[in-house]
């Protein structure tokens, strides 16, 4: 990157100025934090997508240098976090270090945040300095939409947690629930689709109803769903609610929240006002702020559009986007789930390794398997296998290879934990 380019680039972007002030030292800003020698792939985001991509690049071609950039020092899993919220598992069970990726595969872990991208020069600027790359993979997760019109801002989340990114938010909601008074009301707002983990809000609602019932609290959980109906595993969730939680759970669909009064804990909706002792407001979602900051989102769009075959960004060459930040339609029919992010990590790993070695990558092939608890002992699931289809140029469900079970079961509750332990090990170990 020449100095002239650099200067004009900084002048034209507010992010650049912010970047400078963070370092307070132009020298560090210019210097490469890890000088690039051979072929290098940088992965931004150490979730199910990014960590899997980093690991599988190394499994496919150990000679490629892989740097994984993650702002947090720990991985905290969203899957199983609903069990933590109701006290069935603890935070330790869903929290992992990144050290095994370093030890077992030689991936370099850099705890930093991506600040800006200079795609012409294959350069990424982070809070720890500048990095050059041959290929850049972004798996930055989701972002939340703040809405002044209804009085929702992320400043409220200490009092009104979303708990839709696992970690501190999970602990806040768990703490609130543990202090729920007798006869108390919990309000859970389901965001407008598309959002991360379609069955997640309904699993959480089921587990909270189960918590209220198990502890004889006599209160209830009210689901305010902005969608027309339960968006995933609908029949199975409703059967469980009908069988177990007639007293403890109330479900309302097509609910538009009109105002949130955080001080008095009152939500105003098109169906009336409701007061809650706990409000778990899960906001509408978009691609992560990082994806916006780095210029991966087209004007007026909320998600990153990618080439369904390679996951290369529709905007920049050599930049790939996977996971929840991707626009579903541009990929195909896959949901925003942890299992899909893990699958995408493997597809993009082969895609960039093939490209770096001058080969044609194979056709995308992915799977989803996702278990949801409906009580403290029983679970349900949804699964599908997907393959790239030449006619529609998208990755779509293979006919017949998808579905849900006939009913909930105890063994599937066991499978959920085994599933989690295996996907954690496949992603991080």
């Amino acid at each position, binding site marked *: 990157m020449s100095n002239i380019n650099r200067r004009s680039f900084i002048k034209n972007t507010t992010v650049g100025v912010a970047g400078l002030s963070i370092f307070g030292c132009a020298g560090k800003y210019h210097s490469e934090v890890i000088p690039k020698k051979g072929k290098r792939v940088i992965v931004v985001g150490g979730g199910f997508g990014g960590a899997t991509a980093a690991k*599988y690049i190394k*499994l496919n071609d150990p000679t490629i240098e892989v740097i994984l950039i993650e702002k947090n020092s720990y991985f905290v899993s969203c899957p199983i976090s609903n069990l933590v919220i109701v006290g069935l598992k603890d935070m330790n069970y869903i929290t992992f270090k990144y050290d095994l990726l370093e030890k077992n595969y030689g991936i370099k872990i850099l705890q930093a945040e991506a600040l800006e991208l200079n795609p012409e020069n294959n350069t990424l600027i982070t809070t720890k300095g500048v990095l050059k790359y041959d290929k850049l993979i972004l798996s930055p997760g989701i972002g939340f939409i703040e809405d002044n019109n209804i009085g929702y801002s992320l400043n409220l989340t200490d009092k009104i947690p979303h708990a839709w990114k696992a970690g501190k938010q999970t602990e806040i909601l768990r703490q609130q629930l543990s202090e729920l008074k007798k006869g108390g009301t919990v309000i859970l707002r389901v965001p407008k689709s598309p959002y991360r983990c379609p069955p997640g809000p309904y699993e959480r609602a089921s587990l909270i109803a189960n918590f209220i019932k198990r502890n004889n609290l006599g209160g209830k959980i009210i689901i305010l769903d902005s969608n027309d109906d339960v968006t995933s595993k609908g029949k199975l969730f409703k059967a469980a609610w009908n069988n177990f939680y007639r007293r403890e759970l109330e479900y309302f669909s097509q609910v538009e929240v009109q105002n949130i009064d955080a001080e008095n804990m009152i939500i105003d909706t098109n169906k009336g006002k409701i007061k809650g002792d706990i409000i778990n407001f899960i906001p509408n979602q978009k691609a992560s702020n990082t994806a916006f900051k780095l210029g991966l989102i087209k004007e007026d769009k909320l998600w990153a559009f990618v080439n369904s075959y390679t996951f290369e960004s529709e905007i920049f060459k050599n930049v790939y986007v996977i996971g929840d930040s991707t626009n579903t339609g541009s990929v195909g029919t896959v949901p925003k789930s942890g*299992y899909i992010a*893990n*699958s995408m990590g*493997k*597809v993009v790993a*082969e895609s960039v390794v*093939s490209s770096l070695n001058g*080969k*044609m*990558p*194979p*056709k*995308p*092939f*992915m*799977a989803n*398997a996702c278990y949801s608890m409906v009580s403290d002992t029983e679970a349900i*699931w949804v*699964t*599908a*296998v997907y*393959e790239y289809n030449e006619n529609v140029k998208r990755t779509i469900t*293979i006919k*017949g*290879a*998808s*579905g849900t*079970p006939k009913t909930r079961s105890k*063994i*599937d509750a*066991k*499978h959920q*934990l*085994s*599933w*989690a*332990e*295996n*996907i954690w*090990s*496949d992603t991080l*170990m």
Partner: protein
Amino acid sequence: MKVRLTFLLFLILTTVSFVFAETGEKRIVVICAGCHGTDGASVGDSIPIIGGQKADYLKKVMEEYKNDEKAGSVMNKIAKGYSDERINFVANYFSSKKWVNTNKIYDNNLANKGKKIAEVCYDCHGKLGEGIEAYPRIAGQPVFYLKQVLLDYKNSVLKSDEMSFVSEYSDDDLEALANYFSSIRR
């Protein structure tokens, strides 16, 4: 000259398509790892280890799931995404991987008790539970998984002539058997 060029083109094309097919097939197996662990080394206690398992067994099970001849969880759906050719590839791939024993604990007393009645399994599964042809390796699988399978046979959730002997055993005996074979970790 023209012939040589055509031949060269043919060579390039076949090489490219070979690489394409090979890596393409690998992609259909790596997605299994989300549930079964990287290269089939499952660390969960209800989902079996498939890395290093007998190829004939894996092939048979995938076909049974695909044709709904065997009850399972997500596998009845997933197997339908695999052609016979792909099932062969999946079976051979995982079979070629190193077997990694479960790290889930077993009960030593129950394992000793199980050893005394384990002979009934030797004909099909081998003296060390190592598996023979289409009969799976059971040594080193998690206790929970083995116990669940035995109970499923006893309760007719799963059906097989060879496994019908389990009806003559108590649930406690089956648990002891599960502990014994899980304890063989070599």
